[in-house]
């Protein structure tokens, strides 16, 4: 599962939902894998305002990945202009202004959409229940005494 999904997941136990400590879930013994994917700035811009940034930062630290900036970047910071001659132009005279993904966008893309948890556990900070992740698929089915 891609790390982005974790930003929307909390404990499945009903009584934990109201507790602030049930979100986000804490990874335990996770095995990470990088799966390259094509960057899509439009998607990043769309999803950025919906992220819980502080919790994402915490998760990244718990996984031992490079820290994120303390505040979320603005959607406008995801693109930068680059002066470049089109590929078809060999003279190099017809320089155009192109919008390309910025370093910020590429870093965010790497964290949210290329970093995947392949196995390990996800632990609720409130009740301590651990959800297993196997082959990249987390199991949130609750045992009978927790339903």
């Amino acid at each position: 599962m891609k790390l982005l999904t974790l930003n929307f997941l909390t404990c499945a136990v009903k009584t934990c939902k109201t507790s602030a400590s049930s979100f986000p879930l804490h990874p335990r013994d996770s095995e990470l894998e990088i799966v390259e994917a094509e960057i899509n700035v439009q998607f990043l811009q769309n999803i950025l305002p919906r992220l819980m940034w502080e919790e994402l930062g915490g998760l990244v630290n718990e996984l031992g990945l490079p820290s994120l900036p303390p505040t979320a970047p603005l959607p406008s910071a995801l693109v930068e202009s680059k002066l470049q001659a089109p590929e078809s132009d060999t003279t190099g005279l017809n320089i155009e202004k192109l919008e390309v993904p910025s370093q910020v966008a590429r870093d965010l893309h790497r964290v949210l959409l290329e970093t995947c948890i392949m196995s390990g556990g996800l632990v609720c900070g409130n009740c301590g229940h651990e959800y297993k992740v196997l082959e990249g698929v987390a199991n949130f089915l609750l045992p009978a005494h927790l339903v």
Partner: protein
Amino acid sequence: MPQYLVRLVQMHESFRKAELQSLADLAGVEIVIVKYEEDSPFCIISAPSPKAAKDVISRSILSFGIYELWGHGSDYLALHTSVKESSSHHWPIYKTTPFYFTLDSYRGTRTEAQRRQIIQDFSYLPFTGPIKLKDPSSAIFTIFEDYALGAEAPHYLYLGRLLGSSSRHLKTMYDLKKRHYISTTSMDAELALLTANLALAGPGKIFYDPFMGTGGFPIACAEFGAYVFGSDIDARTIRGTGGSARKGQTGKMDVEGNFKQYGLQGRYLGSFISDLTNTPLQIPGPDRNIREGQVHEVNSARGGWLDGIICDPPYGVREGLKVLGTRAQLSELERSTHADRYKDSGYIPPKRPYSFTAMLDDILAFAADTLVEGGRLSMWMPTANDEDIELVIPLNRRLEIVSVCVQPFNKWSRRLLTYRRLREEEVTLADVVADDVVKTENEKGARADDLNDFRRRYFEGFKESERTRQEQFGSSSTPDTENAGDPKGGWDGALKDIFRKESPK
């Protein structure tokens, strides 16, 4: 506004207008449906520009293409007069371009000689360019003939110039017969793509399917550019260890493999195993404590975060309709046994049958909580075809019904219900509370048949509805034929009722 001819397919009729309207919303284009008949594949719409018209149809599944309308009439004389009157300002543009003419007869045939003659009759058009069939720059003109069933001659004719084709080729590309991994209840590719259109799946959006199975709906949404994830209560379908419905297929078949097959894995956010009634997804908005009768706003740091939800919930017929829990209340001893043993590798959480109507209400409540304003829920729902029973469409005060489309089968049909999440200012807190307090009376019981009326009647072969109908109408045969002739009869009235309520729109 100029008029355009849409060449629709003549199937899934009740979905066609809903699709056109959704695609117009998606393209941000205002269209007006000028002429539309359920029994005809020709529809005239007006749109602001040829580009807008082309944009609307480019993603369509239930049409072949869109044409600039050059003329129309009830016979060839009227068609030629109409072409001369309404399209002469276009003529100079195509004076020297390559072009060709084709004939599209719906429910009729023409011999080669007749075909040639019909095309020849348009020779008054001052085109001097070469006739080229395969040149992509060619202007393509099509004469459309609409025949009544079994008629000798067409009753209506159109001439159009092709502006753009639809995405109907995706139906073949995503055909289940060629899909890596499917299950017994996989949705037909055409309908899955159509569902994605009605839910407005598009580039950069995030979509979720709570009953993903082998991932048919998420794949359709990903095809249109959305980022998708899903969940299912059955771990085997997601992990793919349960094999496939395809005969003789062995080896590792999983949902991810399906995304890889179509090169869509970059937009697949992943999946997890869960039950919608105990979802691990974060529920924003008014506090869950409303359920306990208290109302207070919470720290909803996050609002709705899903652009769309599409699903085909289990009907309880071919696959069980179950949620986590046990049929009977657990004793203290049993509870402690579960608590002691759940970490064992072979532990399987117990599941119990669940009420179908309660499940639909739960989906609606979940959608109302998690969708962004204007986000859509498209959900399939089966019903028996009894015209004498009023159709119940599940409602939620934070969702507005956008369209209801019917796919009729012999004794039952399924409906695709599409809802729009209202804007916050359109909803009052009182509405939200009302939805929770005035809970619809759902089926009660412990057995699947008590809980799911549709399932029970399905396995009884819908005998009950036949019987009540006979009792009601006695020996009189007229109502029977009336009802049998139009399986959607009861529905049309219901649709009118819904849309009348929203007349300001």
